[in-house]
């Protein structure tokens, strides 16, 4: 558990995207994810309200899974999103690639 109570599995990478404005949180997350193995977990800390929507949308487009999103609360000034990287194809999908 982090101080703000978000459950973080052992070995989870963290991305501090606080203060970054859209689309930078998602771009930083994609850069980090490109170097990680399938199944890895990443906890993103963000302050831009668009990140709450855009990280799940990115995950859907890239075949990753959002485990949990926590909005900024009484105890924290930022939100968190926990993503588990999916698929065995961790490289970026080529443009317009057929997912099959």
């Amino acid at each position: 558990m982090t101080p703000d109570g978000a459950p973080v599995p052992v070995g989870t990478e963290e991305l501090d995207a606080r203060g970054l404005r859209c689309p930078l949180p998602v771009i930083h997350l994609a850069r980090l994810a490109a170097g990680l193995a399938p199944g890895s977990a990443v906890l993103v800390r963000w302050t831009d309200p668009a990140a709450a929507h855009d990280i799940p949308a990115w995950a859907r487009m890239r075949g990753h899974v959002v485990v949990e999103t926590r909005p900024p609360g009484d105890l924290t000034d930022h939100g968190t999103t926990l993503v588990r990287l999916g698929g065995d194809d961790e490289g970026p999908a080529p443009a317009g690639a057929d997912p099959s």
Partner: protein
Amino acid sequence: MTSRTYLDAGGRAPLHPAGTQALAAALAEGWADPRRLHSEGRRARALLDGARESLADVLGCRTEEVHLAPQHTASLHAAVEHAVEGRRRFGRRTVLSAVERAAVHAAARFAGSGTEPDVVPVDGRGRVDLDAWRGAVAGPGVALAALQHANGEVGTSQPVAAAHEAATAAGVPLLVDAGASLGHVDVGPHWDLLAADPGDWGAPDGVAVLAVRTRVRAGRVRPEDDDRWFPGRVDVPAAFAAAVTLRAVLEDRAHADTARRQQVARIRAAAAAVPDVEVLGDPVDALPHVLTFSCLYVDGEALTDELDRRGFAVGSGSACTSSTLEPSHVLAAMGALTHGNVRIALPRDLPDDEVDRFCHELPEAVAAVRRVLGVAGL
């Protein structure tokens, strides 16, 4: 200088020639206060009566049911406030879809006086969940339900007939925001209050339309005035121009509908062919002229600027293009990507070659923004 192509007609379409002509004529004839009894006043009154009669005829309601607001936002605020106050005996809760205009959300919270609105979710295309809607309107303490005719940001039509049936069965009046629809599609008879926006159909500014069935009980929310809905004098020339422009666009609607659906289909295909672009909204059951898409790893403001440099005026629902830094609540409710968003609302009579030029330049514009951000291959 690059030629300009205006693709942001939602809510403020380029002025229709019939509207500017009517405005000039009405300014000459109908400048006087229509409440005065002299000849000048009576001439203004005749123009105003004619305008309301014409609007009522289009909407299929009585002339006395047509009220004229100064502006669409004021119209929506008044509709919610009066209708909620009129049913205060039952409660102050409002039921509304998650993708209603911000003005409807704000008015519903305000009129609730502490009772939060019941916000009904939408699916991935932005269409309201009818089962959830039916449950919500049948709940206790509901004063008013509000559902747009179609969404002006993503184009998706709403199931207004079924939503009205459910509201009526529960004894709850339905406000239909037809601000993105009237002038483009048939808005139908399934409403108790209906708001429409002349700016959206190409009429000059200065007036908005709120039709209220006589069966709707309106509470008193303002000091007494001859016009309880919108106090003060109506802008007669603007009202006359709005009615004349609506007639003109409806005469041409079938043609404009076919042409713009074809143009939207071409832009849809061009956008979908750009890597990592999600085209949003219902492709079929939708407004004829609206299309929205979001581009992954793209800054909406940068893309709007890039397209503007290339001669195209487009809208965007991305947070960085709004003053509040909040992304579009419509895109958020749909679970769509909110950054890199481009919102197109085609004006009437746009030449096909301008659509072709947009389709041709769009991929390069997106690529240019992505190059600056260094996101190739992510």
